[in-house]
């Protein structure tokens, strides 16, 4: 592995870990606030899947970095500007419709992206993808059912779900951006060329939204910045809460 490829793989793996840990943490904020017990448990399980994914990516990142850092250092000892997650993942949980719409966008994204990552020449990334694909099938079925139920539900639930779709739509363009790092890896057969997946994502999401009697928004605006460390103000607040114990008691084990 050349130095350039190795450095890019470290950056890429960290980005994928950041996406997972941030979304996993946001979902976990619903634990004990779910609309009913079974749903509370279900969403908690989805959060665990994402946090487990983050651990796999960070463990691999630590191995690539080979500078004494561990998975915990990646999760707990980096500030918001060092995080490289997609902005969509960091948005506050909002109401239940908002979280389910975000979840649908993310689940469809992983549904189209993971099969490509499975083809990676990097064996570890391919292995993580193989594990995650199986879980994502269940996640998507759940978020799709919720969006259908809320969109095609009462007047109030329809209104809130449409509002969430409109509010989040502008954050989805970033999911399909490529930069030099990702292009280098895509050309090397290690990373995924996400720019080629936008139409497949759009088609699947549009079908589900339409079935749920919701409007598919026009592409009027787009926000970007997560991959370069320019985040919304929300990430800093989230990390403060997520990292406080680790930073207050560094190296503590129990």
């Amino acid at each position, binding site marked *: 592995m050349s130095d350039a490829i190795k450095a890019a793989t470290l950056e890429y793996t960290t980005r994928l870990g950041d996406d997972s840990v941030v979304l*996993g943490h946001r979902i976990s904020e619903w634990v004990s606030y779910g609309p009913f017990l*079974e*749903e509370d*448990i*279900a969403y*908690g*399980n*989805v*959060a*665990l*899947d*994402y*946090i*487990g*994914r983050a*651990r*796999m990516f960070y463990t691999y990142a630590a191995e690539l970095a080979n500078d004494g850092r561990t998975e915990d250092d990646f999760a707990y000892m980096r500030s918001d500007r060092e995080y490289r997650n997609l902005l969509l993942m960091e948005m506050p949980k909002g109401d239940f419709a908002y979280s389910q719409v975000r979840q649908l966008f993310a689940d469809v994204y992983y549904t189209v992206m993971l099969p490509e990552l499975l083809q990676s020449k990097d*064996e*570890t990334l*391919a*292995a*993580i993808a*193989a*594990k*995650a694909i*199986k*879980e994502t*099938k*269940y996640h998507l*079925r*759940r978020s799709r059912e919720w969006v259908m139920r809320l969109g095609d539900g009462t007047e109030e639930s329809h209104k809130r779900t449409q509002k969430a779709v409109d509010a989040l739509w502008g954050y989805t363009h970033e999911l399909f951006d490529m930069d030099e790092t990702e292009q280098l890896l895509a050309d090397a057969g290690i990373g995924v060329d996400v720019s080629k997946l936008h139409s497949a994502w759009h088609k699947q999401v549009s079908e589900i939204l339409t079935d749920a009697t919701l409007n598919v928004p026009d592409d009027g605006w787009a926000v970007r910045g997560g991959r370069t460390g320019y985040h919304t103000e929300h990430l800093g607040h989230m990390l403060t809460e997520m990292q406080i114990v680790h930073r207050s008691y560094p190296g503590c084990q129990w």
Partner: protein
Amino acid sequence: MNEISLMPEEQYRRLQQRNAAEVKGLWDLLDQVMDPEVPVLSIWDLGILRDVERDGDRIVVTITPTYSGCPAMNTITEDITEALNAAGYDQIEVKTSLSPAWSSEWMSPEGRSKLRNYGIAPPEDADLDEDGLTPDAHAQCPHCGSRNTRRVSEFGSTACKALFQCNDCNEPFDYFKKI
């Protein structure tokens, strides 16, 4: 009439690996390590014990998680180390392997019946739906055997299970998902 049960290919391969290994005694020893969430299943039964090797004085055990975020993996690692320490081995390494990804096919036949007796429906006690996922009804009730059951939640008490309820005996039960 004698009945010959068919053994899945993967199960046969695992058995061969175990029986042929020069460290067969260590595989046997690890039968005492149970899954902390389903304490009737050993890590062998569950299929998460992938390999046991001896490298000089060092024992290297390879396990694979059922689900990415399975919180039981840390406990299992500690339990493996403890079991081997108690048998006089003090240099233990427990490695986690991600590939190939764990599949419910790897569960041993004994594991499946132990699971049922414990009150959890094993993966093959439900037919998958058209998407290859847990169906919304008809997993066999481990308590009364009825197929007249319905899914209450896609995710049960742990990531690997879904929650069902029997319409005949009314008992709720966990179903171990097929993945």
